[in-house]
């Protein structure tokens, strides 16, 4: 199967501090070049039966296949990370970063610092969803082949010098700042939601499961403040501070958490609780679904 290069997802004349020349060269030469190389390698692997070529030849081809594949995928994510939408980060995205890094600022500091530390060399900084623990991590990569096993990359900063030398020369720091100024936070949030949803389907709890479980309201602090009721029997805990209260849950008991709609806030919290050894699930449909079904609520005190 032959891979097709994707178009740039934005108009390259419209980004701030990243020139059209740089973006077009990056897209046409480095990204499209990787796709072309990948197709050549795939063709070569198709025509050469794996059993019929020497081990060192196969090693060489498979290594190059890995490099070209990841170069293609990470470049697509890189271009999808950028845009002209200047909307602020969604509160639920802020929560996700704060839950894993302490605060959005801490996340940004680390992400930017890892990028600057790679200056003068090559590599990637990748914000990755790590399903085992339902957390986000900033992954360091010295080349295209480094990736967290089973991780889902959500935001990619290309630190190969082709990503900036044309505009910035050796000033890698200025490039990292320009990248951050052009991040499309809405698309990042959409990728995050998709990643969490895909990884949490097995953790669904139905309305009838609630009766037998310890119930925790994990609506975002901002959303909970506006609320006037809880599901009967629930207590509220801050989903940004799972570590602070996970150990207070009754040991061995089934736990069901809910957020407003049963999307990424409740799902990621259930995953984090699972990683802490708790048998947690999230309530499908969340508070809204429960309320719409006419199930019992209790007023918020």
């Amino acid at each position, binding site marked *: 199967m032959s891979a097709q290069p994707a178009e740039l997802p934005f108009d390259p004349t419209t980004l701030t501090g990243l020139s059209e020349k740089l973006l077009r060269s990056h897209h046409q030469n480095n990204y499209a070049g990787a796709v072309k190389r990948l197709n050549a390698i795939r063709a070569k692997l198709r025509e050469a039966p794996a059993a019929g070529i020497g081990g060192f030849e196969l090693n060489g081809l498979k290594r190059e296949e890995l490099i070209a594949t990841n170069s293609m995928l990470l470049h697509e994510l890189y271009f999808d990370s950028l845009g002209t939408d200047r909307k602020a980060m969604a509160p639920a995205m802020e929560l996700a970063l704060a839950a894993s890094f302490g605060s959005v600022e801490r996340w940004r500091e680390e992400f930017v610092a890892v990028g600057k530390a790679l200056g003068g060399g090559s590599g990637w900084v990748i914000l990755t969803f790590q399903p085992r623990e339902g957390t986000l991590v900033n992954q360091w990569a010295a*080349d295209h082949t480094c990736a967290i096993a089973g991780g889902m990359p959500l935001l990619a900063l290309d630190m190969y010098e082709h990503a900036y030398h044309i505009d910035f*020369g050796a000033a890698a720091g200025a490039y990292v700042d320009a990248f951050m100024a052009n991040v499309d936070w809405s698309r990042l949030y959409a990728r995050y939601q998709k990643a969490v949803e895909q990884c949490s389907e097995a953790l669904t709890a139905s309305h009838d499961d609630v009766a037998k479980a310890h119930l925790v309201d994990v609506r975002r602090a901002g959303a909970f403040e506006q609320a006037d009721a809880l599901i009967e029997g629930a207590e509220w805990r801050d989903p940004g501070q799972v570590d602070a209260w996970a150990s207070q849950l009754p040991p061995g008991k089934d736990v069901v958490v809910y957020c407003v709609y049963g999307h990424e806030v409740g799902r990621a919290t259930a995953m984090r609780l699972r990683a802490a050894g708790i048998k947690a699930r999230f309530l499908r449909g969340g508070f809204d679904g429960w309320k719409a079904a006419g199930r019992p609520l209790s007023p918020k005190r």
Partner: protein
Amino acid sequence: MRYTLKQIHCRPWTLPYLSVKLIESHYENNYGEALRRLNAIAVQLESLDFENTPRHVLNGLKREELAALNSTLLHELYFASIGGDGQPTKGMSDILARDFGSLDRWRAEFRAIGYALGGGGSGWVLLTYIPRDGRLINQCASDYSQCVAGSVPILALDMYEHAYHMDFGANARAYVDVFLRNVDWPALERRYEDAAKVTGLRPLEQPEFGDVQGIGVEEVKEMIATGKPVQVIDVRPRAAVSRGQDVAEGIEWRDPELIQQWIGELSKADPVVVYCSYGFHIGCKTAIKLRDAGFDAKYMNSGHSGLKAIGHPIKTTA
């Protein structure tokens, strides 16, 4: 210990098709940064309490030290590699023809490795002297940490994008060609002369068998394969043969303790080669006995293990 800066080894204003801006940025930012980082790492390492340092801290520092040190060294060699007129000297042409078949063949390989590292990759192409074999090879490194152990690099082509993007954009091929036009061949030849003085690992000495001739295992295999008249005998001690339960295909084993029983089967017209397990005393002593009896006998280096190591067919005796 602190690493000190080296003055740039070429004159930046004299390099055709390489801008002063590019070379200055490369020297000041990339080379300079590597050296600064190297010294910062050195400071941290000096004050480290090795007993109580977590392994990830030490691993991280030592890995970064390797990258920064090689970046420093390879950049110095890079700047020393250019500044010439790109015209190969007679001496270097002959040496490259010896090791690569021809000057053109060397150039084609060196250039192709550089081209292959272009297009969004990074790394180095190094012409490197291997003291073990007394020859040059083109080495491809995909980052700063890859170097042939014990080798001496004498020509370095930087394929990190900082080396060319400013002048050539993504056109790595044009940059590689320009690099070759700028190679300082007389300086390269002098570096080769220095490198060629380096010797490989000293062989293990067996002074007690100083005058017994050894023969290489590859040479023996070749003699057998081409049907040269040679009598090769496996003379490993009986215990070694019963433990290993294997012998080389086409070679007879004889007990070295019972040499008088089988010496009569040998012919004095053709040379004799004997070997033991690894190439040590049993083979040497047996060769001496055979020589004393008037045979043209040698012992084979590396012994039975050597035959297995080069892939000579082996059959089991179990």
